């Protein structure tokens, strides 16, 4: 691997931007393709598919054997609300490979006894969120049921273009939330991005089952191609 490629690869990874390294396995020739450049690449379909799956793979193109090595940033999950659902959601998300952080200014909720080994930030979203570097590889879930906490957090998630945004609450609660967020300057397209009621409709009852439905929905958004994603929703 040429030093320039290695250097660029490390820089992109440090910035949490996805890249794919294309290696011609016969000759060792390589090129690095940034996700932003996929659209104009001849291997576009393969690159997009492998990145979505987060999976490296061999392909043949133009009589050449190519290895596509996918470097996708580790996905993060930010949970607003150290509530009962979060106690099931945090370890489940972690077992799926997410870096999990729980934010809740209410110290009675955000206690290490309730969340052993999970990074906790017992601050208001305005203070807690900026250092977390919420980005396009972050799933964002607001489950406090308290507008004072959930609303500013959701506004932050819109700004950072999270790949998934979900909020707890019935359709009625969500309609009110929409009104409040609009009043605070949120765009219609932002509000439409919120998955609410949160989670896939699997008839979940217990906190653990709700956690499963939330992670199932996040997985679908992360992995399914755009068309099938619409059908699942």
């Amino acid at each position, binding site marked *: *691997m*040429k*030093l320039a490629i*290695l*250097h660029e*690869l*490390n820089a992109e*990874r*440090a910035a949490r931007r996805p890249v794919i390294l294309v*290696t011609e*396995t016969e*000759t*060792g020739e390589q090129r690095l393709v940034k996700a932003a450049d996929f659209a104009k690449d001849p291997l576009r379909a393969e690159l997009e598919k492998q990145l979505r799956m*987060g*999976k*490296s*793979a*061999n392909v043949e193109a133009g009589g050449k054997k190519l*290895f596509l*090595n*996918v*470097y*996708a*940033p*580790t*996905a993060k999950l930010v949970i607003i609300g150290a509530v009962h659902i979060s106690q099931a959601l945090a370890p489940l998300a972690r077992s799926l*490979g*997410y870096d999990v952080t729980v934010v809740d200014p209410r110290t009675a909720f955000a206690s290490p006894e309730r969340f052993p080994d999970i990074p906790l930030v017992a601050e208001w979203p305005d203070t807690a969120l900026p250092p977390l570097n919420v980005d396009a590889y972050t799933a964002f879930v607001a489950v406090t049921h308290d507008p004072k906490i959930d609303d500013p957090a959701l506004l932050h998630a819109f700004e950072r273009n999270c790949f998934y945004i979900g909020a707890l609450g019935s359709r009625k609660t969500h309609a009110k939330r929409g009104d409040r967020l609009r009043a605070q300057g949120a765009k219609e397209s932002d509000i439409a991005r919120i998955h609410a009621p949160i989670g896939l409709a699997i008839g979940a009852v217990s906190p653990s089952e709700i956690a499963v439905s939330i992670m199932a929905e996040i997985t679908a958004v992360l992995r399914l191609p755009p068309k099938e994603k619409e059908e699942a929703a």
Partner: protein
Amino acid sequence: MLDRDEDILKAAEDWHKAGRGVALATVVETWGSAPRPAGSSLVINDEGTFLGSVSGGCVEGAVVTEAMDVIESGKPKMLEFGVADETAWNVGLSCGGTIRVFVEKVG
């Protein structure tokens, strides 16, 4: 698989910067129950120090030896390990899988 081997590629760059000969070994194909998925990597320097894994410990020794050649010659190599191959069985992918590992020099 979500990727977590930042440190390996960072080490490749750091070791090269420090003037060492460096090779990178990457799993490019797996069959059967291989222990590490395609894309997993191992970085090796000319002192035989290595970081990461391509098989969870089964064939790293053999890969490090081959990497020394690659650092010397500068030419990339494709290695294959698996149960079908007598010598590979000797170095031992006990899990019964087969893997192909691409070894290249850095720089």
